[in-house]
């Protein structure tokens, strides 16, 4: 019991810090047109490579400075957050639904279903994921929906593997046997007895996957395979920042920090939620 309490106390600040950052980015992304100080696409060569606000030569209203085309960095990051979050939510949820369902079926039913699903997972995992993503986007075409689809197609296996193992462990438990004796159907047992016990892991993986989707989207934008080049994306900004690192380091550093904080927050948030969700650890 004492251990459980320690876990809970430990989960507190982690949950709030990570959740707070994610909420901040999420709100900024949703209300981007309202909160962004400038038009993210507006170029002004008079304002090129303005430094962030605490350095000499900064202009008010351009808090994090501008890039080599004079576009406001903060506004671009805020609008980039929109795309990052749309991709994160849509891709992670799609991967989660497919992967968790198949994992649950493989783990609980075992036998045949398990052999087929596990074999597919093995084949899937044989592809290096980034290469797989680039290949898929090349086939599906660039654009928001193909990026989402590509991430979901690649990463459902992550859910499938973990949930399969957990469901398998759960289905050997006596309470599952008890439910069978009582006369419940197999699907009913899977949903009522097994699913609640793997749910904390699903939640944690979902959050982690959102972070991964953010990274993958950034990588795809970085290699110019993501969304149309006009819309700002974090990966796109990083790619541009890399070219002007010596003249304007901030164009590279701020999006990197944003990206890393967001990805870390997603994984920490997931872990913290898991301990909250789990009645034994709670």
């Amino acid at each position: 019991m004492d251990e459980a309490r320690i876990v809970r106390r430990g989960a507190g600040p982690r949950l709030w810090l990570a959740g707070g950052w994610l909420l901040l980015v999420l709100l900024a992304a949703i209300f981007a047109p309202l909160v962004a100080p400038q038009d993210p696409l507006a170029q002004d060569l008079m304002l090129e490579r303005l430094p962030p606000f605490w350095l000499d030569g900064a202009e008010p209203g351009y808090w994090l400075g501008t890039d080599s085309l004079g576009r406001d960095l903060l506004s671009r990051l805020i609008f980039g957050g929109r795309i990052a979050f749309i991709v994160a939510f849509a891709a992670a949820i799609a991967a989660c639904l497919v992967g968790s369902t198949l994992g649950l079926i493989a783990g609980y039913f075992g036998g045949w279903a398990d052999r087929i699903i596990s074999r597919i997972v093995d084949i899937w995992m044989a592809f290096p994921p980034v290469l797989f993503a680039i290949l898929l986007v090349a086939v599906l075409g660039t654009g928001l929906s193909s990026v989402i689809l590509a991430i979901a197609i690649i990463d459902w296996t992550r859910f499938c593997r973990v949930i399969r193992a957990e469901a398998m462990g759960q289905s050997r438990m006596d309470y599952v046997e008890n439910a069978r004796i009582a006369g419940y159907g197999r699907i009913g047992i899977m949903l009522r007895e097994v699913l609640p016990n793997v749910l904390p892991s699903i939640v944690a993986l979902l959050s982690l996957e959102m972070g991964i989707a953010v990274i993958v989207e950034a990588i795809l934008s970085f290699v110019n395979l993501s969304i149309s080049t006009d819309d700002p994306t974090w990966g796109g900004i990083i790619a541009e920042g890399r070219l002007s690192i010596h003249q304007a380091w901030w164009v590279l550093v701020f999006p990197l920090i944003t990206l890393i904080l967001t990805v870390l927050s997603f994984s920490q948030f997931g872990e913290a939620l898991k301990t909250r969700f789990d009645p034994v650890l709670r």
Partner: protein
Amino acid sequence: MSACLDIIDLSAVLANGQRVLRSVSLTVQPGEVRALVGESGAGKTMIGKAVLGVLPSSVRIVEGDMRLEGEDLGRLQPKARRTLIGARTALIPQDPLTALNPSRRIGPQMTDRLVRILGWSGDKADKRVRQLLDEVQIREPDRVLRSYPHELSGGMRQRVLIAAAFAAEPRLIVADEPTTALDVTVQKQILRLIAELQREHGTAILFVTHDLGVVAKISQKVSVLYAGKVVEEADTATLFASPQHPYTRALMAATPRYTDPFASLKPVDETVLAGLAAEIAAADQAWSRPHG
């Protein structure tokens, strides 16, 4: 009147052909407690699982009949069999922790079965569950019903499981070493509770144990199992007064007595084991001839 449970010549094998149950026959009359004793690995749990229809997939029944209140389980369609077993039987398991779903509160776990399987109304199920919690002497039903399993002690959890087993008024309960996982003082209380509820509800119990002390306290009939074979069966009083089989006598000699604690250290005699091995081999040979 037909027996509550009638097992006739039940044989089961593992995937590699090894026999785990060797022509087991046993009967449990309505309202009667039959103890099933034997050392670890004798197949006691297997028999319970066979009756409840939850044998592991690696174990296959190759011969024999099981009748639950006269209904031949082997002849029923799987669905009908499940429904019948669900309505007429229940299990009191060995480990009260893993037998409860850790992520669901006790209340719904207990009432669900009454509502979904027996079609009771939520109110009726709730009343019934509270009545049973009272019978197993749980004094704070509200707190317990709201709790998660890990929030209760082992003894409490076992009380909950006993209440759950009796709640649906089954005709037959399989109790698989229901006190083994508990500490000694709690063991006695739990045993007394099971005996009490059994008497009040008139439920037949197949009581699996390896403890002859428990057998003497709770049962009217005993079957002694060794290597999946019933080597002796008798009224409990008769068995203790005049055990017939050498293995039964050896078990009795190995049971601790308060007067002579060191008696418990006596292992089963070599010659008895050799005799048993010969008996099992003879039985297998006789069995494999028509089945080979």
